[in-house]
């Protein structure tokens, strides 16, 4: 059974607007959460992470929010740029094992 879920396979936003990508998880033992970006024919690239002791982490245009009670994670990209168009995976970790969502394909329209 999928422990990390991304229910939106795709998302389109206008350049300059906010992109919000969502992720849900089921395992309350997860203590570290990450977002990766992936371009075709390349491996995933680490974007941003958050520990379970925090509820927000910011890095430039990227902010990750964690709601532990809802078991929900989101990634905000502001402002969105055409170069942000890629597949985004969320991941969650318990000790050394990582579990990935199925990905959301983001298209930023110029």
């Amino acid at each position, binding site marked *: 059974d999928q422990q990390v879920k991304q229910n939106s396979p795709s998302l389109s936003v206008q350049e300059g607007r906010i992109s919000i990508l969502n992720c849900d998880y089921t395992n309350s033992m997860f203590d570290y959460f990450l977002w990766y970006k992936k371009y075709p024919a390349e*491996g995933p690239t680490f974007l941003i992470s958050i520990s379970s002791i925090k509820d927000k982490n910011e890095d430039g245009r990227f902010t990750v929010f964690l709601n532990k009670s809802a078991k929900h994670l989101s990634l905000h990209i502001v402002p969105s740029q055409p170069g942000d168009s890629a597949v985004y995976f969320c991941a969650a970790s318990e000790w050394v094992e990582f579990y990935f969502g*199925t990905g959301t394909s983001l298209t930023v329209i110029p």
Partner: protein
Amino acid sequence: NAGVTQTPKFRVLKTGQSMTLLCAQDMNHEYMYWYRQDPGMGLRLIHYSVGEGTTAKGEVPDGYNVSRLKKQNFLLGLESAAPSQTSVYFCASTKGSNQPQHFGDGTRLSIL
């Protein structure tokens, strides 16, 4: 910086053949992982290693074996390839727990 390097990038096999995928990292990372990515399934963990000489099963280990004889290398073996093992395989490494993983660019494997 090479980071994580996977060899080969592409391979076509016949059912029943065997092969080994090589992953090499130059970041002195302790932990290494093998994943497979299938359409609509995300990345699923096959096997992982927390140090030289140690390996452990992940979510989908059946049909695969691994070895970590040297810290920088993690090998994934298919003893008798099956069409269900057609996939893109990714290797990753990380410094330790609660650290982000660094990924290779993948090996696209087709089994006919």
